């Protein structure tokens, strides 16, 4: 399954919205409930589902979902 497809499932679970469709350019401004605290839920869910760990600095530099997908991809390739 593509990373974006898995991420979409995670976003739907975290934001409790079965109809949510994310794109690479999606940002926190596009999802009403995506604030710094729900972001923590998102990070935990992503780490758990992909089996990766993020460092704090890595997350601060992410501008959109595409950046997150690319970071996950890089981490998976290093495994």
């Amino acid at each position, binding site marked *: 399954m593509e990373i974006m497809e898995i991420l979409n499932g995670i976003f739907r*679970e*975290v934001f*409790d*919205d079965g109809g949510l469709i994310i794109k690479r350019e999606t*940002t*926190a*401004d596009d999802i*009403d*409930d*995506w*604030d*710094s*605290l*729900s972001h*923590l*839920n998102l990070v*935990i*869910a992503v780490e*758990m589902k992909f089996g990766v760990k993020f460092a704090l600095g890595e997350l601060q530099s992410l501008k959109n979902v595409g950046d997150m997908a690319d970071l996950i991809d890089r981490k998976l390739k290093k495994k």
Partner: protein
Amino acid sequence: MSSVTTDGQHNIGYLCTRGQCEAGRSDRVALRFITPSLERHDYTFADLDGLTNRFANALATLGFGKGDMFFTFLPKAVPQFVAFLGALKLEVVAGTLFSNFGEEAILDRLGDASAKGVITKKSFVKKIAAVRDRMPALRWIIVIDSDRHLADDILSYDRLMAESSHEFTVPRTSPDTPAILHYTSGSTGKPKGVLHVHRAVLSHTATAAGVLGLRQNDVYWCTADQGWVTGTSYGIVGPWNLGVTQIQFAGSYNPESWFRILDEERVNVWYTAPTALRMLMREEPDFYSRFSLPSLRTIFSVGEPLNPEVIAWIRRTFSRDIFDTWFQTETGAIMIANRPGQEIRPGAMGKPVDGIEAAIVSDEGDPVADTVTGNLCVRAGWPSMFVTYLNNPEVYAGKFKNGWYYSGDKAYRDPDGYFWFVGRSDDVINTAGHLISPFEIESTLLEIEEVAEAGVVGVPDEILFEKVVAFVALHRKYGYSQELELKIRLYVTHKLSSVATPHDVVFVEDIPKNKSGKIMRRVLKARYLGTDAGDISTLEV
């Protein structure tokens, strides 16, 4: 500075719109709404008057009248301001909900208030629908992002507005008329509905001028969400009753956007929160050298005590002072503040504002000596004092003794009259300026199948002031897993809100309780912090 309270007319909706037009400010920009991509949309006071008239007429057509309850449940959006003031024009009580509330939080508020209507967006209707059968009084849902009605009782804002007249005669509203409703959390029980009357506009306006120092022709930005009291008292009412242009930014926290707005919009007065400032402190100093902030006169802060480090950083980085203010949902307006012209004592709350008598009072209702810690109280009777906790008159009465309102905060006063915050007298958690009830979170955690017991505390956090930490004990047949931790976090987020979601979930064998079964949060907090729990003689073992 001329404020408008004409001929005994206290209607907040009128004063913030029509009243400004009649004072000659029709063409002045009232609302500068800035999108996440920094597009600017301006609305003059005349625009705001016409839009709020339309909304008042729309509500009247739907059968709303004086004393009915109407809520906004929206992220930052222009209709939020229109609906709030439009409802007030009709003498409907305007309540506001934080847009991240989950279904239980919505039920606790709309249900308790017997709300007759709510304005929201399509994606939020699902949360309301999940609990709607337990809110029989709720007749109308208005959505702002549909050009057609979605059902007989789920109506399009655009269509209602298009079909309503832009003319409306606001009734002469007495100062005692119920106006604004916010819900606040206590350490026990459900959230309580804090009701204010139209008279509150006097305090909002006086403090917006006298503390925030707002002047005609100012551009002012209050970053608070309209779901909370700061967002209505100082993000709607006070500034607009002074004819001031307000910035409202629809984007999320973003240092680049925030500082471009402060710079390019030439903001004169900025009112924000310590958590935001502490997050901004993490940016590289070079970041700020790009912004000259040519018009910024003063910065104010509210929500949590302002640490001396933030004051020093602001002085160092911006060559300006920052002034801390203190108030609560119940007080409706600023009661104690630091302000220009008064020496700042870093870490102090400041001094009482004009017309406010504050004191440190014993549990018995008697003022105590300077430097002695006690209950922070305000002499009852100021214009924006709450008039009741909805459906809870006994608890309301319990907040007063010997003519003093007991704020629930512990503080002391120094010999020069400055007040210093010490802590809460209850277990309410203040995280990023949001007051959170540990009881609500514990109750929600107990709804999760695997959870047998739960205890929730607030512990100090360098960014959030306090963070929510949940201790959970599982039923014997369940064990810890990462999936369960995520399930617990998401359950609280979806039922209550993201701000109530524990930062840390600590799995324990059991929750310490005293002999009467009360959760000993003090012990949990000490356990988390690795400190001495003090007297544990009442601990049930």
